[in-house]
């Protein structure tokens, strides 16, 4: 790769929000003005040192950054190959990487003078992170959540309520994350004057995929510096789970120009790709348009979005951020998958041998990293993004074990 023309990763998205053929702005006319306003504000603030200083200050003193980069020695021994480092996003305030982005978007809402924020959530992590920043800034907050997810993530639902947010169960369609996003879009189009829509992932209409990426890039910038400091060199591979893909893009993006760093995005293989019951659009989908952007989707022959399955609510989404679609097509990132069973096994293993309970989403990345490490040499390094902690999933895992708690 080193002798080919270097790809200019900073040139995407283009002025209109396109990552190659992906991304863009596919929304109804009523939202266009709000998106243009957000775009121009963000263009100004993203180069404004005061805004950046305010963001960095919040990340340090409210979120608790930098998050550690931790060498998981027993996991490494068990895998029997490359050294596995965990980027501990699970140690952030609220327990996941999501808060990096909600801090950033809440600051944008504050600059725009919007008194109300809305969000969609799957596992509830983004909803909690949004409710948290709303509580801190005194903003009214409503969170849309698929009715099925409200069931399987009851702990996070109650956390949001304690934080003063209203959780609105969405009963249309498949009652999961995609339907929550539809409903949030409907709310936004109705209340666009006073409401800021805090999108939780690197999808949606331009400029969301760009600004969410920028806010999450703190993960990769820290990991890069920490790896250089601790190991004296760059990692050989990065591994992160991909639902919408915000934790993955946050880790990957600052390394894109490091041609020798391989990258693996791990999609939810559900009950196995061959069963059709999964949430792996990059592995088994095709390009289409949903939720404001063109990207790989899970759809049928007629262009209807099909229902997805994953044991982890946060990955249970039929689309993916448009930048991932582009990174797949140009071959910079490999997109692979881990099944429900593999993720559950990784959840148990990491808990037992490292004392770290990962979110089921992050467990997909751990599962793949262990397999990958076994194919690599002991002097090589893998960084896994441990995007969230697993407390929220204890009910799900207990249920699978047949235990009611």
């Amino acid at each position, binding site marked *: 790769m080193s002798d080919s023309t270097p790809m200019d990763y900073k040139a995407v998205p283009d002025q209109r929000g396109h990552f190659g053929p992906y991304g863009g702005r596919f929304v109804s006319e009523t939202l266009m003005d709000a998106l243009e306003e957000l775009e121009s504000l963000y263009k100004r603030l993203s180069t404004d040192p005061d805004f950046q200083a305010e963001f960095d200050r919040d990340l340090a003193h409210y979120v608790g950054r930098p998050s550690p980069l931790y060498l998981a020695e027993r996991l490494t021994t068990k895998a029997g190959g490359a050294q596995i480092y965990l980027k501990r996003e699970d140690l952030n305030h609220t327990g996941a990487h999501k808060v990096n982005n909600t801090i950033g978007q809440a600051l944008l809402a504050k600059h725009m003078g919007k008194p109300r924020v809305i969000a969609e959530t799957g596992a509830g992590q983004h909803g909690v992170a949004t409710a948290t920043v709303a509580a801190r800034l005194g903003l009214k907050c409503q969170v849309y959540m698929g009715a099925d997810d409200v069931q399987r993530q009851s702990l996070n639902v109650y956390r949001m309520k304690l934080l003063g947010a209203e959780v609105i169960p969405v009963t249309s369609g498949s009652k999961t994350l995609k339907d929550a996003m539809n409903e949030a879009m409907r709310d936004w189009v109705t209340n666009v004057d006073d409401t800021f829509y805090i999108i939780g992932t690197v999808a949606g209409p331009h400029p969301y995929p760009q600004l969410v990426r920028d806010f999450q890039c703190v993960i990769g910038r820290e990991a890069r510096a920490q790896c250089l400091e601790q190991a004296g060199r760059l990692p050989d591979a990065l591994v992160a789970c991909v639902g919408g893909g915000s934790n993955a893009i946050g880790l990957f993006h600052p390394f894109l120009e490091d041609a020798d760093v391989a990258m693996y995005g791990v999609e939810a293989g559900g009950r196995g790709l061959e069963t059709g019951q999964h949430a792996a659009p990059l592995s088994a989908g095709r390009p289409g348009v949903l939720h404001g952007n063109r990207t790989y989707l899970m759809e049928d022959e007629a*262009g209807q979005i099909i229902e997805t399955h994953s044991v982890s609510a946060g990955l249970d989404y039929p689309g993916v951020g448009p930048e991932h679609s582009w990174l797949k097509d140009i071959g910079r990132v490999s997109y692979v998958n881990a099944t429900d069973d593999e993720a559950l096994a990784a959840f148990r293993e990491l808990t037992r041998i490292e004392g770290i309970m990962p979110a089921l989403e992050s467990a997909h990345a751990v599962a793949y990293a262990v397999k990958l490490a076994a194919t690599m040499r002991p002097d090589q390094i893998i960084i896994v993004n441990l995007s969230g902690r697993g407390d929220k999933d204890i009910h799900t895992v207990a249920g699978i074990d047949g235990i009611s708690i």
Partner: protein
Amino acid sequence: MSRIQQCFESLRAEGRKALIPYVTAGDPNPEMTLPLMHALVKAGANIIELGIPFSDPMADGPVIQQAMERALLHNVSLSQVLDMVRAFRETDQTTPVVLMGYLNPVERMGYERFAQQAADAGVDGVLTVDLPPEEADEVIGFFKQHGLDCIFLLSPTTTLDRARIICERASGYVYYVSLKGVTGSSALDVTDVATKLDRLRTVTDLPIGVGFGIRDGESAAAVGQVADGVVVGSVLVSKIATYAEQPEQAREAISVIIRSMRAAMDR
């Protein structure tokens, strides 16, 4: 001259306004749609907007979401919607039919193939709610090539500069969304609509249809005073929900609404 243009011109000559009902194709089942389209014309409709069912109708309120869910229970696809239009054209060659929906089913069929097949079936115009003009260049090219009008939305948040860009790319008519919200919303402010339409008319000569929030003869007539066309959807679709098992009653209930709107608009 396109069928849509012709429709607006002859109405203008008579001093009347276009009544444009929306129904979702295949709701509550595929057999319902063709007789319903004819019933709409008989009751006084001038243009029919036929909704293409989509699994994720982001811009629609609950009434039309549920209509799409009912249609999708029968797996009504875009090709079947085109078949319905083809069947309609066997006995009605004058009433324009506009397909309204979301981009993904069209994209899946392929823009060129869709444009060709839609034109063959007798479709006159297409309104894709999640396709703003910025992303529409390729599609518009195929639509023009096959004589399909490209209908765009304008909203209360559309600036005059944007309206100019949109209207340059539109043909047939433009559709002004009377309020911020999803389909089936209630509060329509006719005075505000009138002010907005006055401004829009400074940038376009295209006929302007107005929709969202029109529920009865009174609101249809009020909007008809200021617009060239009156679009009505959710109030009709809710009758289909009420009479999902009784197609004749559904048609009659819808015809009653259309007739009363027609009468109020022509008064």
